[in-house]
């Protein structure tokens, strides 16, 4: 639903709790909560002012001047942190590349996301506000990923993030190790996997060079190739590679290829990351880490460990966590940083790993990931400490609009499950987005 339509519906349906602070609306002040800004120390009894979908002010009570027209919400006893950012998810049941080839850079996952799927509602209920939705890992390259804002929406277009030039934010998904090994035309060994990837990047370099030499001359420009076009973006550093990789030697293979072709990469899962933390740090490769309850499930994940986040942190590596939803449930995303703290990661790095550091890995840190003036008002409101099992997400806000409210029947159903929780979300029939 568009912001204007939402506003219209709100005005038509009285009384309703105020749940937006977007452009044109009065500023909204959250007063009394413990604020966890990530970018600075916690503020025990803080004030957070939201105006026009952005954070307009933040500080301790008494330090922030409230505008006369501000609507004040008393959130004493609650905790407000930035909306959670998940660097690797499969919500919306996306299917990327098909079985026809191991490398399919022309495939866009945004063409395959069901925005009415219950998994997206569950992610909102988990406090997630931004997600990197990826195609799967059964290919060497399974397609272009897309970064979504979890606004209340009926179409994928409403969830996209665009830069000033209108370009849709996203990366590209690659994988090595065992998942992408299959019968031909897929590779049968690790070396073959790397060889196929190298050949494809060489082809992209050739395509790029032809384009450069043509200098716009229609006679010389090669036929447009959507796959090579996407890989040229990768070669030019305009599209980040999100690379599934588990075993220590597979991780080093990714770093070798990244160095050879100069592409920027975020290493994903990194089950064995704790074994090669020094090498990862030396390559300045950020890591998106999975936290799961036991090792195994496949040979390359035998040594997956809660300690990976902490080991990488101490080596100086940028660490984020991811749900890999459906592998883990987005509603329990805060378990991941908490279990990492259990195994030695610092609290500060663990919380940054689901907010600001995750935003950095998606190159969205100028807009999201922390409670700072000028950033998007993407918030998770909790009833306790972010790393406690007993803490519930009470509300989730995206750009000044509340998209999840535990106190509403619909919100409760999303958060707790139950009869009808798995059904897709129906189109709005009435009542200002109350679904």
């Amino acid at each position: 639903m568009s912001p204007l339509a939402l506003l219209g519906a709100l005005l038509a349906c009285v009384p309703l709790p105020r749940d937006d602070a977007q452009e044109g609306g009065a500023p909204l002040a959250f007063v009394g909560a413990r604020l966890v800004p990530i970018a600075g120390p916690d503020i025990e009894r803080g004030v957070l002012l939201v105006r026009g979908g952005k954070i307009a002010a933040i500080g301790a009570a008494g330090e922030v001047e409230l505008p006369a027209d501000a609507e004040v919400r008393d959130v004493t006893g609650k905790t407000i942190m930035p909306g959670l950012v998940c660097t690797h998810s499969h919500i919306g049941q996306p299917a990327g590349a098909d079985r026809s080839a191991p490398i399919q850079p022309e495939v866009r996952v945004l063409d395959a996301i069901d925005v009415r799927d219950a998994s997206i509602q569950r992610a909102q209920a988990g406090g997630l506000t931004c997600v990197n939705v990826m195609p799967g890992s059964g290919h060497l390259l399974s397609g272009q990923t897309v970064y979504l804002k979890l606004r209340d929406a009926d179409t994928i277009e409403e969830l996209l993030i665009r830069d000033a030039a209108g370009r849709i934010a996203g990366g590209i998904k690659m994988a090595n190790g065992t998942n992408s090994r299959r019968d031909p035309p897929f590779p049968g060994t690790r070396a073959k996997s790397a060889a196929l990837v190298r050949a494809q990047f060489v082809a992209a370099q050739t395509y790029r060079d032809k384009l450069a030499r043509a200098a716009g001359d229609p006679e010389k420009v090669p036929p447009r190739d959507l796959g090579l076009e996407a890989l040229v973006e990768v070669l030019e550093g305009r599209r980040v590679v999100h690379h599934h990789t588990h075993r220590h030697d597979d991780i080093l293979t990714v770093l070798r290829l990244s160095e050879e072709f100069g592409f920027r990469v975020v290493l994903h899962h990194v089950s064995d990351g704790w074994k090669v933390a020094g090498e990862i740090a030396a390559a300045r490769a950020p890591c998106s880490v999975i936290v799961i309850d036991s090792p195994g499930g496949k040979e390359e994940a035998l040594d997956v460990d809660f300690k990976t986040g902490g080991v990488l942190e101490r080596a100086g590596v940028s660490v984020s966590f991811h749900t890999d939803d459906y592998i883990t449930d987005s509603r329990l995303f805060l378990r991941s940083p908490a279990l990492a703290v259990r195994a030695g990661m610092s609290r500060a790095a663990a919380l940054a790993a689901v907010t600001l550091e995750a935003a950095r890995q998606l190159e969205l840190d100028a807009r999201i990931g922390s409670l700072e003036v000028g950033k998007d008002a993407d918030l998770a409101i909790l009833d306790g400490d972010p790393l406690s099992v007993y803490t519930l997400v009470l509300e989730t806000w995206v750009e000044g609009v509340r998209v999840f409210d535990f106190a509403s029947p619909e919100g409760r159903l999303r958060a707790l499950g139950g009869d009808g929780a798995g059904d897709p979300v129906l189109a709005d029939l009435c009542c200002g987005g109350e679904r």
Partner: protein
Amino acid sequence: MKGLARLAAVFGGFLACAASGRFPSAAAQDAGVLVVRGRTVHTAVGAPIEDGIVVCRDGKIAAVGPAATVEVPGGAMVLEAAVVTPGLIDAHSVVGLSGRLNQPHDQDQLERSAPVQPELRAVDAYDPREALVAWVRSFGVTTIHTGHAPGAVISGQTLVAKTTGETVDEAVFVPFAMVAATIGEGATQDEEPPGTRAKAVALLRQELVRAKEYATGRDAGGEKQPDRDLRLETLAAVLAGERPLLVTAHRAHDIAAALRVREEFGLRMVLDGGAEAYLMLDELRAAGIPVIVHPTMARAGGETKNLGMETPHLLQEAGLLAALQSGYESYVPKTRVVLFEAAIAARYGCTFADALRLVTIDAARILGIDARVGSLEVGKDADLALYDGDPFEYTTHCTGVVIEGEVVSREAR
């Protein structure tokens, strides 16, 4: 004063051995005795004991109570923890049959050549050295009900084992616990029958009818004595009420089908999974059926699309006997850990004590092993789990595990 002096000696000894990183030498100890002291001791059957002591002797619990009242034997090894609970019980798992490699050679939880195979014994497949057994143990799980998985009309038998021992005989203490059945989508197949829910139930009923006739003939003896049939013999044990039928069913209408079968054949039944059990509370209570609920962190989708985080709480509130399970995982994580699942139950409606019951005494009751495990009571097996804080908190560690008086894990996990 005498008691205090004794305690001082005990703790002095503990601190000394902690500092050197070693336990007191065997010579200095009473080999058969272990003392566990917790700032809080949860017995699972009564109020928590502040500054409690559990004395373990010859593998059994010899005493449990407040430090002020329990006599501590001299020379015993002492373990100390912030919180002590009974060793946890995983009420339904496939650990030991479904290995961590997830390759055909270590996946023994489901045989697909026929839809009904109750004769498949869990003892013939359980690997006590499987790494995942030690994994769940390191988080406090001391007893597992494991065996054949959901996914066939009848997939085989289950067993109960301690998470220790190097041979099946050392590990197992109930070799044949239940017969595992599935009703609903999970029992159907694409190529071979049964292809629908109704066909699966028809197959199940037909086999039970055959088993009934087999048992009648067997008991009559003489001319009517049938040839021995392992499959029907196993089902006859179910019909006789000697073993429960463990029925995995998730949707409400599949649970209703399970209750119909139970009614028709007069079986003892335990419901497994039960994603929509919250819709069938009255029916389950009327039938007196205990429920081993799916993992609280199970994925919502397919048959479990409507699962609820509050189901364990709702079952307890309705007066039903409920327990938690790690279930079967086909990919990653290869097994869940019931400590973590109980923690989520405690987040969504259960009190601490009620969440603990789900993985201790109530699990033992459902499995029929509560005379031996599931609580800290004198005479029961000395199975304990130690923690450095609230066991359910994400950031707490399990710091020790004791099985039958033996310290089997001291790694902080």
